[in-house]
């Protein structure tokens, strides 16, 4: 804040004899929306401060200063500062600039908040109403605003619309939400203690042996999550498909050929399947039975965060991390309600009729919204899951300003149509099953046609009925069997986890929270423990996970993590004290560390082997096309320090294959051999340039004009030295 701005603010504050309220919001956009809603004219004064822009709103007989935060401004650190100290249980909350590199702007941000809060009469926490939001607001009020956390009021809202903000301001509770803050503090403290102590033990045990420092991380939620991926990988990799047989048949009815399934869907023996086929061949079928029925499909539940992220992944291939970012933006634009909710219920306090009327002003939804209003469909189908803080995700009715990106538009559309679908009547379909006898065998034809599309019409294109129409048939009618044969099928393993599937598994096993699960999945990817989507554990992930299973079985156990989660949820519900949870979890951690310390040397050795193997695997480019047994690896010349490709069999004197490499950028194997010469292809990644794919063979017929010709690609193998 400049001197002039400070003077202006001071002048404003002293000149006005009215009540001065100070609101802290979680993000700059949220601060703007809150200020606009609370200002009498809807246009608050925007002040450009030294670190951020804040707003001064004019309320009824009061001035309201709305300040943004930037997510968490405070974080935990080890009080003793020594990063190799293990165990360490003394923590302290400090501003993020003191704990993280590259967070210098946080200091100026906090100083400005402190300055602005000095003359306020009332303090209000208006961060998101959940554990993280409450903690963000509380730590700022405590550390930056001279311990105003205990006297501050709390605004609770689920959307950033003007009506909801005004209502939250009018009904704000005095006193912050202590139980949420306590739960947040406990969660951060427990996770911090587990994270630093386990990671330090792993890192130092390796460093003691090798003298090299490389971070190996483990965590309370992170490790069991890695365990899920490993377990599924194990199932997939050790899966033996079992063959079974199906009878593929088709009948001719009039001009139409209709497929039919055999009475027994899976036949275990090929001989039996062949016998059935031979007994049916050259026979005719007789219609033995026609059964008609009605199938009712209820509307879907409203979206909670997990089901919404899974739907976004399935329908649009948007990862949970990306969808969370998009949902956050839609919420800040006041287009949808708070997304980090575990609820599948829309309470009666939500004015569904007005939301529908607002949505009817958007041409795309006009017809469907009007139809629901006309039919007075205002009672949504309620789901099972509940969240005391927020309802399920729903559209606020605010019209998008047309600036939505493609993905934002898709996810907004999904939320609106899902909201419509939950209000619409069930879908009803007519089913027909026709049993056809062929000698002693039976086949079934089945048809399905829509009677009432119900909610499916409102949820298109995200739901549809695949109708199958059967031609008219009569009992006793004779029809020709035009095709009958055996099809061999194999059982298949459970699919590898997609990021959305892993999110669902974490939810089912009750580890992590709605706010943290996506971040945990991102973390295990960033640590290079898992790769791809669908995910598989990397060699490093396997090694670290196996080591943790052996030496820290409890950290990999879902039960322990879930038990701690329940205890932390207990703090939120006022059933248990934070200190009690901290003592319990610290005792558990200490016993784990004590056990592991007895095997510290073994852990160090295993980790050393792991990192060495991982480094080698990362450098391995593929099979050597010359000797066919060795592995081509990235090596570095002892003399020139230049990198090149050499065969692993060089050291045994069996192969002298080598090739030069580009000297700049990161080299990564593509995993596919060149179609022309059989040498591995690599990807060269340079900053600011598009990834570049080449075959490592300089003599490859496909790249006669390549710049990498050198001396024919042959490097003096005498210079070879392992990197």
């Amino acid at each position, binding site marked *: 804040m400049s001197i002039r701005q400070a003077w202006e603010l001071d002048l404003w504050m002293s000149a006005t004899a009215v009540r001065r309220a100070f609101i802290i919001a979680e993000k700059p956009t949220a601060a703007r929306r809150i200020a606009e809603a609370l200002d009498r004219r809807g246009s608050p004064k925007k002040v450009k401060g030294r670190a951020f822009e804040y707003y001064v709103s004019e309320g009824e007989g009061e001035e309201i200063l709305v300040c943004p935060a930037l997510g968490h401004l405070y974080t935990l650190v080890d009080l003793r500062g020594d990063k190799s100290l293990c165990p360490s249980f003394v923590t302290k909350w400090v501003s993020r600039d003191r704990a993280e590199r590259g967070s210098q702007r946080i200091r100026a941000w906090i100083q400005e908040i402190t300055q602005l809060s000095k003359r306020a009469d009332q303090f209000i926490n208006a961060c998101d109403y959940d554990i993280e939001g409450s903690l963000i607001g509380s730590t700022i009020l405590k550390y930056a605003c001279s311990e105003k956390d205990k006297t501050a009021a709390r605004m609770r809202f689920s959307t950033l619309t003007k009506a909801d903000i005004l209502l939250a301001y009018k009904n704000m509770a005095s006193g912050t939400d202590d139980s949420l803050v306590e739960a947040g503090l406990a969660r951060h403290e427990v996770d911090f203690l587990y994270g630093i102590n386990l990671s330090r033990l792993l890192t130092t045990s390796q460093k003691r042996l090798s003298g090299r420092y490389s971070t190996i991380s483990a965590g309370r939620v992170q490790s069991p999550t890695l365990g899920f991926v490993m377990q599924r990988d*194990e199932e*997939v*990799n*050790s*899966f*033996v*498909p*079992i*063959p*079974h*047989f199906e009878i593929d048949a088709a009948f001719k009815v009039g001009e139409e050929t209709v497929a039919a399934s055999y009475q027994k869907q899976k036949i*275990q*023996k*090929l*001989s039996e399947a062949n016998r059935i086929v031979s007994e049916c061949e050259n026979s005719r079928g007789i219609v033995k039975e026609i059964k008609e029925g009605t199938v009712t499909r209820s509307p879907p539940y409203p979206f909670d965060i997990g089901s919404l992220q899974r739907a976004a992944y399935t329908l649009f291939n948007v990862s949970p991390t990306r969808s969370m970012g998009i949902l956050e933006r839609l919420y800040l634009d006041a287009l949808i309600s708070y997304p980090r909710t575990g609820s599948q219920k829309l309470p009666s306090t939500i004015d569904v009729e007005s939301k529908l009327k607002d949505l009817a002003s958007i041409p795309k939804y006009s017809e469907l919204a009007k139809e629901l209003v006309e039919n007075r469909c205002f009672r949504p189908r309620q789901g099972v899951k509940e969240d005391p803080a927020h309802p399920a995700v729903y559209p606020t009715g605010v019209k998008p300003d047309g600036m939505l990106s493609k993905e934002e538009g898709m996810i907004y559309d999904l939320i609106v149509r899902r909201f419509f679908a939950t209000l619409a009547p069930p879908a009803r379909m007519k089913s027909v099953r026709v049993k056809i006898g062929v000698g002693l065998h039976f086949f079934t034809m089945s048809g399905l046609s829509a009677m009432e599309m119900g909610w499916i019409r409102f949820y298109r294109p995200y739901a549809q009925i695949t109708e199958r129409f059967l031609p008219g048939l009569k009992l006793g009618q004779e029809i020709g069997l035009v095709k009958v044969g055996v099809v061999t099928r*194999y*059982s*298949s*393993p459970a699919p590898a986890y997609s990021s959305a599937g892993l999110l669902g598994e974490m939810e089912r096993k009750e580890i992590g929270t709605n706010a943290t699960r996506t971040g945990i999945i991102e973390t295990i990817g960033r640590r290079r423990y898992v790769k791809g989507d669908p995910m598989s554990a990397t060699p490093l992930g396997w090694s670290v996970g*196996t080591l943790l299973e052996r030496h820290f079985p409890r950290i990999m156990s879902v039960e322990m993590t879930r038990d701690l989660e329940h205890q932390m949820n207990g703090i939120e519900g006022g059933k248990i004290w934070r200190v009690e949870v901290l003592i319990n979890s610290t005792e558990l951690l200490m016993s784990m560390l004590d056990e592991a310390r007895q095997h510290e040397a073994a852990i160090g050795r295993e980790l050393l*082997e792991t990192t060495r*193997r991982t480094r080698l695997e990362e450098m391995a480019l593929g099979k050597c096309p010359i000797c066919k047994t060795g592995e081509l690896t990235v090596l570095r010349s002892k003399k020139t320090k230049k990198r090149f490709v050499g065969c692993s069999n060089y050291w045994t004197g069996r192969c002298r294959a080598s090739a030069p490499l580009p000297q700049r950028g990161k080299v990564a194997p593509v995993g596919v051999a060149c179609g022309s010469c059989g040498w591995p292809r690599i990807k060269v990644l340079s900053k600011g340039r598009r990834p570049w794919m080449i075959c490592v063979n300089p003599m490859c017929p496909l790249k006669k004009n390549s710049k990498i010709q050198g001396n024919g690609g042959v490097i003096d193998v005498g210079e070879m030295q392992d990197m």
Partner: protein
Amino acid sequence: MEKCRICDRAVTEESLCRYHSIAKRNTVNAYRLWKEALGISWKDYLVSLQKCPGCGVWVREASNHLLREGYRYEEKV
């Protein structure tokens, strides 16, 4: 440290690492079902696994290892 005959990991049983041991066990156990279904020989079974869709990577490696080693199913039953 004794290394797995198939990969670089430490041996846990019968010269194989934990994962290849599991894969080998699954391979041997599933043969009875394959034999019932298709009536094929042990050797043909191991060869079929190499091309079978959905067959796990460790199972392919283990069955290849069993083929190379000349492992005989009947003797183990």
